[in-house]
């Protein structure tokens, strides 16, 4: 094992989509406990730099492994199927239709209930896509098909973030209103 080992090797986890978050967190902390620069605070420059490299590498792997979207994309890349998101934005018509519907709903949404309803809808689509990814990557091992799902998930998550920004703004507005009372 070295700095160039892949994320799964580094964390000693099976190279698959399904992961146990508790185990992942435990492994992350175990690894940081060995390599964090604070462990070498009294040991001078060279040790500090080396520790910093390892610590950065482990944080990078952890960020990728804990996020299902990044993990799926990484597994596709490791298996030779490039996600290549910026050059390939073609999506199936049905998926695009749904995206447009969601966007309209978001634009017209005025209250907390509507926004929360939309969050729930997007969340359902997100969960369904994750389930499909689990099947394609871990069971069928069809990484070319999985790449299309990864791209769909990118759209869904970006939209999910937008809805949450609106929801936050709405909640902040309510906070401000309650302040005024």
């Amino acid at each position: 094992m070295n700095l160039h080992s892949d994320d799964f090797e580094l964390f000693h986890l099976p190279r698959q989509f399904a992961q146990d978050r508790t185990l992942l967190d435990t492994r992350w902390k175990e690894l940081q406990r060995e390599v964090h620069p604070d462990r070498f605070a009294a040991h001078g420059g060279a040790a500090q730099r080396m520790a910093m490299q390892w610590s950065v590498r482990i944080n990078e792997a952890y960020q990728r492994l804990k996020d299902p979207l990044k993990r799926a994309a990484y597994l596709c890349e490791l298996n030779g199927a490039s996600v290549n998101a910026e050059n390939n934005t073609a999506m199936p018509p049905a998926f695009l239709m749904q995206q447009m519907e969601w966007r309209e709903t978001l634009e017209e949404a005025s209250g907390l209930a509507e926004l929360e309803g939309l969050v729930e809808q997007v969340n359902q689509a997100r969960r369904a896509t994750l389930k499909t990814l689990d099947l394609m990557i871990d069971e069928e091992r069809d990484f070319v098909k999985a790449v299309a799902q990864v791209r769909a998930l990118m759209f869904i998550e970006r939209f999910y973030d937008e809805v949450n920004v609106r929801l936050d703004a709405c909640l902040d507005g309510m906070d401000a209103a309650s302040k005024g009372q």
Partner: protein
Amino acid sequence: MALLQISEPGQTPDPHQRRIAVGIDLGTTHSLVASVRHGVAECLPDAGGRVILPSVVRYLPGTGRQIGYEALAAEATDPENTIASVKRFMGRGLADIAGREKMPYRFVDKPGMVCLQTVQGEKSPVEVSAEILATLRYRAEDTFNDDLFGAVITVPAYFDDAQRQATKDAAQLAGINVLRLINEPTAAAIAYGLDNASEGVYAVFDLGGGTFDISILRLTQGVFEVIATGGDSALGGDDYDRALADWILQQAGGKAATAADKARLKTAARAAKEALSTVDLIAVEVELTRGNIRVDVGKSDFDAVTSQLTARTLAAVRKALRDAKLTREEVKGVVMVGGSTRMPQVQKAVADFFGRAPLNDLNPDEVVALGAAIQANQLAGNDTAGDLLLLDVIPLSLGIETMGGLVERIVPRNQTIPTAMAQDFTTFKDGQTALALHVVQGERDLVADCRSLARFELRGIPPMVAGAARIRVTFTVDADGLLSVGAREQGSGVEAKIDVKPSYGLSDDQIATMLRDSFTTADADMKARALAEARVDADRMLLATQSALDADGELLTGDELVAIGSLMQSLRATVAASQDAKEIEEATTALANGTETFAAERMNHSIQKALAGRNVETI
């Protein structure tokens, strides 16, 4: 010292050599220094038995200065030369300082960081802070009758790169080796977490004199992880005083005509606030220019006129919880920090919101310094049994300016540090050979709304059509939360790199000059001390090298062994013959440089061994 020291499990290399390490809370209104003694963290008192040092520095005509209570006493009579709350100016430009027209100081607009004109000339906030830090350093050195090995210094969670860098510069100017900068709320959690051995999600509610901070932390198996931070940098105990003062005046049916009236009202309001922590009703009498006023203030009156302020703290708490994607029920405990949390209505609001009584066992003024001391003790290697690991996050997003004044975020906020993240950019025009990079920090989409950290250029890109160049910009944030940025054109390998401390930070040369200036007074004394320190460092380096060779000498080739051996021999000879600290330091540095590769290799080996061991256990 470049060599990694590895000792057998359960053995320390030299049990008698305890390093003096302290935690410093460099606060807006007051500062404290704490250290672990006999296994317990405690704040160190001054000669008069007081642990609090008011963060006030007064410059006297000539070269003298007063720091702390003495300076505080002179605030009214010599306001121009008596700098209070300098923390507000750290890493800030003139335009950043809210309400500066009401302050008595003579500000000097400087690129990056504002300066203050005093009777001793221009002083930067870094120099003023260094006076406070040096005072605390001497207090620690007097207490232990030994040199300080290093310090952990706390900063507010919302401090950006410029403010953190300025704090580190101030420490360096004060001759303090910074073991680590840590966030104030994190330090408070360390103080509580270790004392109570608690696990789970905690909120740290820090209401000081002028600022409010909320942090959500997760504690597991001795690991402290900050998962979200938030707050309000213009909300604190002073606002409660002001609200109460306004109400008192309104009750008396008057208006405060003069500045002196306002000051007296505020002092009376503050006294009433403090009294109402223990009694339900207090009579307030204030002498105003147009006559005395007398108003009875009930606890419920005080609660009512400040309820909006308390509500603002809770709004920030809700926002931080949303950022952390947690509900209030998931919070296992709330740590109270800052003198303003002594107000009963604040205690009650927090208790009602979280449905549990907040943690109050430690003095809210001291808790940050105590936590920093615990961390310092461990970083100095005094507590080999200690298992504390702090995994901090970056409080504000870091990014690059792109076309149209927009920010491309590279490191999102709340990312665990240390971290390195990269983003590819390209050229805008055909044949473009240089790229101007503007590094900013903040959450807004427009560059104009974020804080500018640095500008630098990548030059020498081979001419290509627009969009063909691949320029990878890498942001590296170290464990102190300090940023360095590198850019590299992938095709040609052209590189540019900076540590982000240009306009506002002091250059290393400036710091060296200031250090020299401050030491010229006690020249002979300094020389003797420097020589002694250089000899100790040299001996330590020789010892470390020898034990490294004994343990892992087989990693080296014959030639490498000979090279290191001759560097050691030359250092020994220099120590024996020389009376010049600089000569000894140079020989020590030569050995450190000569063993750097060896040190890195040993580090790599030990980590791989440790990680491999873990794997076997896991299987």
